[in-house]
Protein backbone atom coordinates (compact mmCIF):
# COMPACT_ATOMS: atom_id res chain seq x y z
CA UNK A 1 0.00 0.00 0.00
CA UNK A 2 1.35 3.33 -0.99
CA UNK A 3 0.92 6.07 1.58
CA UNK A 4 1.51 9.55 0.37
CA UNK A 5 3.47 11.90 2.59
CA UNK A 6 0.91 14.61 2.05
CA UNK A 7 -1.77 12.41 3.54
CA UNK A 8 0.28 11.37 6.57
CA UNK A 9 1.64 14.77 7.58
CA UNK A 10 -1.63 16.26 8.77
CA UNK A 11 -2.27 13.20 10.95
CA UNK A 12 1.16 13.55 12.49
CA UNK A 13 0.49 17.21 13.17
CA UNK A 14 -2.78 16.39 14.91
CA UNK A 15 -1.13 13.72 17.05
CA UNK A 16 1.68 16.09 18.00
CA UNK A 17 -0.73 18.80 19.05
CA UNK A 18 -2.58 16.47 21.37
CA UNK A 19 0.38 14.42 22.46
CA UNK A 20 2.54 17.11 23.96
CA UNK A 21 0.37 17.34 27.07
CA UNK A 22 0.99 13.72 28.08
CA UNK A 23 4.68 14.33 28.72
CA UNK A 24 5.72 16.06 31.92
CA UNK A 25 5.41 15.58 35.63
CA UNK A 26 4.64 17.39 38.82
CA UNK A 27 7.23 18.16 41.49
CA UNK A 28 6.35 17.50 45.11
CA UNK A 29 8.43 18.79 48.02
CA UNK A 30 8.43 17.03 51.35
CA UNK A 31 8.71 19.52 54.20
CA UNK A 32 9.02 19.15 57.95
CA UNK A 33 8.29 22.14 60.18
CA UNK A 34 8.68 24.50 57.28
CA UNK A 35 12.00 23.01 56.19
CA UNK A 36 12.14 21.41 52.75
CA UNK A 37 13.83 17.99 52.96
CA UNK A 38 13.54 16.44 49.52
CA UNK A 39 11.49 16.54 46.35
CA UNK A 40 10.37 14.12 43.70
CA UNK A 41 8.18 14.16 40.60
CA UNK A 42 4.77 12.52 40.44
CA UNK A 43 3.97 10.75 37.15
CA UNK A 44 1.04 12.00 35.16
CA UNK A 45 -2.34 10.58 36.11
CA UNK A 46 -1.13 9.59 39.53
CA UNK A 47 -2.80 10.70 42.74
CA UNK A 48 -0.96 12.22 45.69
CA UNK A 49 -2.10 11.78 49.26
CA UNK A 50 -0.35 13.69 51.99
CA UNK A 51 -0.60 13.66 55.75
CA UNK A 52 1.15 15.70 58.40
CA UNK A 53 2.83 15.27 61.75
CA UNK A 54 0.43 13.88 64.33
CA UNK A 55 -0.03 11.38 67.11
CA UNK A 56 -2.03 8.21 66.74
CA UNK A 57 -3.25 6.43 69.84
CA UNK A 58 -3.57 2.68 70.11
CA UNK A 59 -7.16 2.02 71.17
CA UNK A 60 -6.18 -0.99 73.29
CA UNK A 61 -3.04 0.31 74.94
CA UNK A 62 -3.87 4.00 74.93
CA UNK A 63 -0.29 4.79 74.06
CA UNK A 64 0.12 7.67 71.66
CA UNK A 65 2.84 7.37 69.06
CA UNK A 66 4.28 10.06 66.87
CA UNK A 67 3.82 9.82 63.14
CA UNK A 68 5.70 11.94 60.66
CA UNK A 69 4.25 13.22 57.43
CA UNK A 70 3.57 10.40 54.98
CA UNK A 71 3.10 11.17 51.29
CA UNK A 72 1.60 8.39 49.19
CA UNK A 73 1.36 8.32 45.40
CA UNK A 74 -0.34 5.84 43.13
CA UNK A 75 -2.08 5.62 39.77
CA UNK A 76 -5.46 7.32 39.88
CA UNK A 77 -7.47 4.40 38.55
CA UNK A 78 -5.41 1.44 39.73
CA UNK A 79 -4.20 0.24 43.11
CA UNK A 80 -1.65 -2.18 41.64
CA UNK A 81 1.22 0.19 42.32
CA UNK A 82 1.92 2.36 45.32
CA UNK A 83 4.74 4.49 46.64
CA UNK A 84 5.14 6.07 50.05
CA UNK A 85 7.58 8.66 51.39
CA UNK A 86 8.35 9.52 54.98
CA UNK A 87 11.18 11.25 56.81
CA UNK A 88 10.81 10.09 60.40
CA UNK A 89 11.93 12.49 63.11
CA UNK A 90 14.85 11.28 65.16
CA UNK A 91 16.23 8.94 62.51
CA UNK A 92 19.60 10.33 61.45
CA UNK A 93 21.46 7.57 59.59
CA UNK A 94 20.90 4.75 57.14
CA UNK A 95 21.25 2.23 59.97
CA UNK A 96 18.58 4.08 61.91
CA UNK A 97 16.42 4.09 58.80
CA UNK A 98 16.81 0.33 58.45
CA UNK A 99 15.71 -0.13 62.05
CA UNK A 100 12.73 2.11 61.32
CA UNK A 101 11.92 -0.03 58.29
CA UNK A 102 11.98 -3.16 60.41
CA UNK A 103 9.29 -1.58 62.52
CA UNK A 104 6.93 -0.82 59.68
CA UNK A 105 7.52 -3.71 57.29
CA UNK A 106 5.36 -6.11 59.28
CA UNK A 107 2.44 -3.77 58.67
CA UNK A 108 3.16 -3.28 55.01
CA UNK A 109 3.48 -6.90 53.86
CA UNK A 110 2.98 -10.31 55.39
CA UNK A 111 5.71 -12.96 55.20
CA UNK A 112 8.34 -10.65 53.71
CA UNK A 113 11.10 -12.42 51.88
CA UNK A 114 14.07 -10.17 51.16
CA UNK A 115 15.79 -11.09 47.92
CA UNK A 116 18.59 -8.53 47.91
CA UNK A 117 20.01 -5.55 49.71
CA UNK A 118 21.95 -3.08 47.61
CA UNK A 119 23.98 -0.03 48.51
CA UNK A 120 23.57 2.58 45.82
CA UNK A 121 23.03 6.27 45.23
CA UNK A 122 19.71 8.01 44.75
CA UNK A 123 19.72 11.66 43.72
CA UNK A 124 23.47 11.72 44.37
CA UNK A 125 23.02 10.62 47.98
CA UNK A 126 24.02 7.31 49.59
CA UNK A 127 21.12 4.92 49.84
CA UNK A 128 20.30 1.36 50.82
CA UNK A 129 17.73 -0.53 48.77
CA UNK A 130 15.99 -3.68 50.00
CA UNK A 131 14.03 -5.68 47.46
CA UNK A 132 11.74 -8.54 48.25
CA UNK A 133 8.35 -10.14 48.00
CA UNK A 134 5.51 -10.78 50.36
CA UNK A 135 1.75 -10.96 50.48
CA UNK A 136 -0.93 -8.50 51.32
CA UNK A 137 -4.60 -9.46 51.53
CA UNK A 138 -3.96 -12.72 49.74
CA UNK A 139 -2.19 -11.03 46.85
CA UNK A 140 1.47 -11.31 46.10
CA UNK A 141 3.45 -8.12 46.42
CA UNK A 142 6.83 -6.99 45.15
CA UNK A 143 8.29 -4.33 47.39
CA UNK A 144 11.32 -2.07 47.35
CA UNK A 145 12.21 -0.36 50.59
CA UNK A 146 14.77 2.41 50.32
CA UNK A 147 16.56 4.54 52.88
CA UNK A 148 18.24 7.66 51.53
CA UNK A 149 20.75 9.49 53.70
CA UNK A 150 19.77 13.16 53.60
CA UNK A 151 22.04 15.97 54.79
CA UNK A 152 21.69 17.38 58.30
CA UNK A 153 20.86 14.14 60.10
CA UNK A 154 17.71 13.14 58.28
CA UNK A 155 16.77 10.18 56.13
CA UNK A 156 14.06 9.58 53.59
CA UNK A 157 12.29 6.24 53.70
CA UNK A 158 10.68 5.30 50.39
CA UNK A 159 8.49 2.24 49.93
CA UNK A 160 7.52 1.15 46.43
CA UNK A 161 4.97 -1.62 46.04
CA UNK A 162 3.87 -3.46 42.93
CA UNK A 163 1.09 -5.99 43.36
CA UNK A 164 0.93 -9.19 41.35
CA UNK A 165 -1.03 -8.69 38.17
CA UNK A 166 -0.27 -4.98 37.97
CA UNK A 167 0.62 -3.43 34.65
CA UNK A 168 4.42 -3.93 34.20
CA UNK A 169 4.57 -0.43 32.74
CA UNK A 170 4.27 0.89 36.29
CA UNK A 171 7.84 -0.24 36.89
CA UNK A 172 8.96 2.55 34.58
CA UNK A 173 6.83 5.03 36.47
CA UNK A 174 8.26 3.92 39.81
CA UNK A 175 11.80 4.14 38.46
CA UNK A 176 11.05 7.60 37.06
CA UNK A 177 10.02 8.74 40.54
CA UNK A 178 13.29 7.40 41.98
CA UNK A 179 15.22 9.12 39.20
CA UNK A 180 13.53 12.43 40.02
CA UNK A 181 14.40 12.22 43.73
CA UNK A 182 16.48 15.20 44.90
CA UNK A 183 17.54 16.44 48.27
CA UNK A 184 16.18 19.94 48.88
CA UNK A 185 19.12 21.08 51.01
Amino acid at each position, binding site marked *: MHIRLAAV*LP*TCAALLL*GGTQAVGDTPITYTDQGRALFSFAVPDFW*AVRTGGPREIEDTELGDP*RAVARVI*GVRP*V*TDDGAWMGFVSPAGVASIDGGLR*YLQDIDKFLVKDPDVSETVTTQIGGLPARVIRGTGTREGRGVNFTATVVDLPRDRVAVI*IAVLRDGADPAYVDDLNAVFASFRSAQ
Partner: protein
Amino acid sequence: MTHKLLKRSILALGLGAASFTLSACDGVTVGVGYGYDPFYDSMLWNDYYHDVDIDIDVDRPGRPRPPVAKPPARPKPPVAKPPARPRPPVAKPPARPRPPVARPPAARPPIHRPAPRR
Protein backbone atom coordinates in the same frame (compact mmCIF):
# COMPACT_ATOMS: atom_id res chain seq x y z
CA MET B 1 -2.63 19.72 -4.30
CA THR B 2 -2.51 22.54 -1.73
CA HIS B 3 -6.26 22.52 -1.55
CA LYS B 4 -6.31 18.78 -0.94
CA LEU B 5 -3.64 19.07 1.76
CA LEU B 6 -5.65 21.80 3.48
CA LYS B 7 -8.80 19.69 3.37
CA ARG B 8 -7.02 16.69 4.81
CA SER B 9 -5.41 18.81 7.54
CA ILE B 10 -8.77 20.16 8.61
CA LEU B 11 -10.21 16.64 8.59
CA ALA B 12 -7.36 15.22 10.66
CA LEU B 13 -7.37 18.09 13.15
CA GLY B 14 -11.14 17.87 13.42
CA LEU B 15 -10.99 14.14 14.11
CA GLY B 16 -8.28 14.69 16.69
CA ALA B 17 -10.32 17.38 18.43
CA ALA B 18 -13.39 15.13 18.36
CA SER B 19 -11.52 12.27 19.99
CA PHE B 20 -10.33 14.53 22.78
CA THR B 21 -13.82 15.91 23.24
CA LEU B 22 -15.18 12.40 23.55
CA SER B 23 -12.46 11.24 25.92
CA ALA B 24 -13.30 14.17 28.19
CA CYS B 25 -16.65 12.53 28.89
CA ASP B 26 -15.25 9.81 31.14
CA GLY B 27 -13.89 11.68 34.13
CA VAL B 28 -10.54 10.97 35.66
CA THR B 29 -12.09 10.14 39.02
CA VAL B 30 -13.64 6.93 37.76
CA GLY B 31 -12.10 3.93 39.46
CA VAL B 32 -11.04 2.91 42.91
CA GLY B 33 -10.72 6.35 44.46
CA TYR B 34 -8.89 6.92 47.72
CA GLY B 35 -11.30 5.36 50.16
CA TYR B 36 -9.22 2.34 51.08
CA ASP B 37 -5.48 2.64 51.00
CA PRO B 38 -3.88 -0.22 52.95
CA PHE B 39 -0.28 0.66 52.25
CA TYR B 40 -0.67 4.27 53.27
CA ASP B 41 -2.31 3.28 56.55
CA SER B 42 0.43 0.72 57.18
CA MET B 43 3.14 3.27 56.71
CA LEU B 44 1.51 5.42 59.37
CA TRP B 45 1.25 2.50 61.73
CA ASN B 46 4.85 2.19 62.79
CA ASP B 47 6.22 0.76 65.97
CA TYR B 48 9.37 2.77 66.03
CA TYR B 49 8.25 5.06 68.79
CA HIS B 50 6.24 2.34 70.43
CA ASP B 51 7.46 -0.06 73.11
CA VAL B 52 5.05 -2.92 72.57
CA ASP B 53 6.58 -6.40 72.59
CA ILE B 54 6.56 -7.35 68.96
CA ASP B 55 9.28 -9.60 67.61
CA ILE B 56 11.83 -7.02 66.71
CA ASP B 57 15.28 -8.54 66.51
CA VAL B 58 16.98 -5.23 67.01
CA ASP B 59 18.90 -4.41 70.14
CA ARG B 60 17.61 -1.01 70.94
CA PRO B 61 16.88 0.60 74.27
CA GLY B 62 13.20 0.84 75.02
CA ARG B 63 11.39 4.08 75.04
CA PRO B 64 11.21 5.72 78.48
CA ARG B 65 7.81 5.19 80.00
CA PRO B 66 5.76 8.21 80.83
CA PRO B 67 5.58 9.01 84.56
CA VAL B 68 2.73 7.15 86.23
CA ALA B 69 2.10 9.82 88.88
CA LYS B 70 -1.18 11.59 88.54
CA PRO B 71 -1.07 15.19 87.54
CA PRO B 72 -1.43 17.65 90.44
CA ALA B 73 -4.95 18.54 91.36
CA ARG B 74 -6.40 21.46 89.61
CA PRO B 75 -6.22 24.65 91.68
CA LYS B 76 -9.58 25.50 93.18
CA PRO B 77 -11.04 28.85 92.52
CA PRO B 78 -10.92 31.24 95.53
CA VAL B 79 -14.04 30.88 97.67
CA ALA B 80 -14.26 34.53 98.79
CA LYS B 81 -17.25 36.21 97.34
CA PRO B 82 -16.68 39.17 95.20
CA PRO B 83 -17.25 42.53 96.91
CA ALA B 84 -20.79 43.73 96.85
CA ARG B 85 -21.70 45.85 94.00
CA PRO B 86 -21.71 49.55 94.90
CA ARG B 87 -25.26 50.65 95.47
CA PRO B 88 -26.57 53.69 93.81
CA PRO B 89 -26.94 56.78 96.04
CA VAL B 90 -30.32 56.82 97.71
CA ALA B 91 -30.82 60.59 97.46
CA LYS B 92 -33.61 61.35 95.14
CA PRO B 93 -32.96 63.58 92.28
CA PRO B 94 -34.15 67.14 92.77
CA ALA B 95 -37.78 67.61 92.02
CA ARG B 96 -38.67 68.78 88.66
CA PRO B 97 -39.28 72.51 88.56
CA ARG B 98 -42.97 73.04 88.88
CA PRO B 99 -44.79 75.17 86.46
CA PRO B 100 -45.83 78.62 87.76
CA VAL B 101 -49.00 78.41 89.77
CA ALA B 102 -50.51 81.66 88.56
CA ARG B 103 -53.63 80.89 86.64
CA PRO B 104 -54.67 82.77 83.70
CA PRO B 105 -57.20 85.45 84.58
CA ALA B 106 -60.82 84.31 84.52
CA ALA B 107 -62.42 85.05 81.32
CA ARG B 108 -64.82 87.89 81.58
CA PRO B 109 -67.70 88.45 79.31
CA PRO B 110 -66.93 90.97 76.73
CA ILE B 111 -68.11 94.27 77.75
CA HIS B 112 -69.15 95.41 74.37
CA ARG B 113 -71.81 92.81 73.95
CA PRO B 114 -75.10 94.36 72.99
CA ALA B 115 -77.61 93.96 75.78
CA PRO B 116 -80.74 92.01 74.97
CA ARG B 117 -83.76 94.08 74.33
CA ARG B 118 -86.06 94.55 77.10
